[in-house]
């Protein structure tokens, strides 16, 4: 039992150190993605609306008129592409994932500027499992979480251990998700 306690502490401590960064990444992105309804966790979003009298219907001058519009609202250098998603709508793509949607009949222009949220963008990117290498690494992290749970049983003995106060926490931590499963 003494050896088990010793090794539980060593593994819990050292693997814990190794996964500090990964824990922060998953913690931050977990909170961010839990609240997708309330915000865009990866981008700052700014919307602006105004009207234009430029003719943006399909014609030979369309590209030039789009660039004139961009001179007014942004910068023509940021133009990427455009297309008509519907009969009356023109969508213009700008660099940095920003875009402009124009009602070509009413002249109403909606601009959506996007800017990456530092740290959150990167954390969310990793949270969504970008490739097979990250899958392996995050599997190792997930396995280590199980290891942390198991080793925590043996780290402390006595009143503060799983037979004493620690046991109450263990039961509470198991009961809460079960209650959620039952009542939601």
């Amino acid at each position, binding site marked *: 039992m003494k050896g088990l306690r010793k090794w539980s502490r060593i593994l819990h401590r050292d693997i814990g150190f190794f996964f500090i960064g990964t824990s922060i990444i998953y913690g931050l992105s977990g909170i961010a993605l839990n609240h*997708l*309804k309330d915000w865009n966790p990866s981008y700052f979003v700014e919307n602006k609306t105004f009207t234009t009298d430029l003719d943006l219907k399909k014609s030979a001058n369309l590209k030039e008129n789009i660039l004139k519009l961009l001179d007014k609202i942004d910068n023509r250098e940021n133009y*990427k592409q455009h*297309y008509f998603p519907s009969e009356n709508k023109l969508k213009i793509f700008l660099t940095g994932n920003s*875009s402009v949607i124009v009602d070509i009949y009413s002249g109403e222009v909606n601009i959506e500027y996007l800017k990456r949220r530092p740290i959150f963008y*990167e954390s969310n*990117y990793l949270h969504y499992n970008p490739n097979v290498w990250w899958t392996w690494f995050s599997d190792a992290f997930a396995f280590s979480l199980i290891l942390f749970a198991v080793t925590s049983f043996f780290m402390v003995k006595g009143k503060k251990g799983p037979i004493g106060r620690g046991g109450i926490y263990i039961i509470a931590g198991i009961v809460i998700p079960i209650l959620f499963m039952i009542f939601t």
Partner: protein
Amino acid sequence: MKKTIIVLFIALGLFSCKENKQKTEDNNESSVLTLAEFDKKAGELAGKEVEVIGIVDHVCKHSGKKIFLVSDSSNLHIESETRFDDKLTGEEIIFKGIVEEMVIDEAYCQKLETDDIKAHGEGEDKEKVNEKRKAQAQEYRDEMKQKGVNELRFYSVIYISHRKPKI
């Protein structure tokens, strides 16, 4: 303590800045289909390799593994096992991939209504997701009724590689 913070930032930098390198190729463009051409031929292309050109309207903000490819008259989903670089948004791109056919019929609609699958958008209530799925099933039924058919066929492309068209 300082070392831990430095290692953390280095790790974040290394992993975060490295977008997954999707495969790019340099081929001729004579066999490349526009989305309108794809729409016309999709039925006979199921299971075959194609190249299609369109503008990337957006990369799925959840998984990053789906692209919504558009043109003035059509649109198409490109699906990948790995994440797309969201810098592709707004670019005109040629995608190579295998055409996948999806058949929607009454059995599918019933499965859609009754299956208890995971919410696509995190943070959405289970009830809202179920409502959306029921509404989607009803839309399919309405479309089948309107067209007088027993099934609908949708096509997407399973990603192999991409490249920019030569100007």
